[in-house]
């Protein structure tokens, strides 16, 4: 048996990512841009929700979007139709966005000219939970077709989010969705987290979302002014 000694280290494994995320957060605050990230499983409607959001904000604010996918720039092209600048982050085989990818994608973008920046993560309810992207608000989306217990199945990611968004509520009746049970699931994994119900197709719930977003952004501004 070899003699060993224990040397204390105490370092977060994702320290590298955390350092970049903190620098991004400082840059965003300085530039006065409110950054919102979106996570969900593939196909729960992040891009449609974002299209609606960008269109709703476009007349009043300067907005932009970054969108992560393993392949194709389809989503960036979809989002750009709203008139807002949109950039695609192609991750290759990487299943999540990291702070360094966001930093790289933002190179050459004048942040000072923006009020809101949206970052759509790769569709994945597991891996993105470990990575801080420097955002001020993290949304977790799930659709009525995924079931009321989705939050109970993925507690980790719901625990990193600030706000839950239930999408495709225009389909709720067709799939006999129980909204109260969904609310119960959200409260079980993340007590106190608000849940918004939206339909990107009909626009239902979008006004409440935009109102909440503006409120959060202005609260942030007040905090910064202190």
């Amino acid at each position, binding site marked *: 048996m070899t003699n060993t000694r224990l040397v*204390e280290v*105490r370092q977060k494994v994702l320290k*590298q990512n955390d350092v970049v995320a903190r620098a991004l957060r400082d840059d965003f605050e300085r530039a006065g841009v409110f950054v919102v990230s979106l996570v969900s499983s593939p196909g729960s409607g992040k891009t449609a929700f974002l299209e609606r959001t960008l269109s709703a904000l476009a007349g009043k604010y300067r907005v932009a979007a970054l969108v992560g996918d393993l392949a194709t720039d389809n989503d960036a092209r979809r989002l750009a139709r709203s008139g807002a600048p949109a950039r695609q982050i192609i991750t290759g085989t990487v299943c999540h966005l990291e702070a360094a990818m966001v930093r790289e994608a933002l190179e050459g973008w004048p942040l000072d000219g923006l009020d809101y920046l949206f970052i759509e993560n790769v569709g994945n309810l597991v891996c993105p939970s470990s990575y801080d992207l420097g955002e001020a608000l993290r949304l977790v989306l799930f659709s009525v077709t995924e079931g009321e217990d989705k939050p*109970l199945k993925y507690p980790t990611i719901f*625990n990193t989010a600030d706000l839950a968004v239930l999408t495709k509520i225009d389909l709720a009746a067709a799939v006999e969705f129980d909204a109260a049970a969904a609310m119960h699931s959200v409260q079980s994994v993340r007590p106190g987290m608000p849940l918004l119900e939206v339909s990107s197709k009909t626009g239902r719930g979008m006004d409440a979302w935009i109102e909440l977003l503006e409120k959060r952004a202005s609260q942030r501004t007040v905090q910064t002014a202190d």
Partner: protein
Amino acid sequence: MHELSIALSIIDMATEEAERRPSERVAAVHLKLGPLSGVVQSALVSAFELAREGTPLAEASLVIEAIPVTIWCDGCNAETAPLALNELRCADCGEPAARLVHGQELEVTALELAALELEA
């Protein structure tokens, strides 16, 4: 499945530390891991065993201390255990958690170093 990139980060971090101590080798890396870190323990161990090959940590083991989830309960005015990972209510009084206290840890706490001269 991002455990491989997590394992590589651990190895990079430990290698960097070990380079400062050239007369010793890393025998083990001690890690604190919470169930809400987003990292699966068994997947991380497999990934670590793969990733350590051909690095200065080829002989090193990964010693994981599993950290249980705890919450702050306003009702008990104490740090308590939740009913379950996906039911963050106080196991003692049933009140919803005010916040999470432990369970998101993903942290290297220590390196176990062995002297190299013993082999000479």
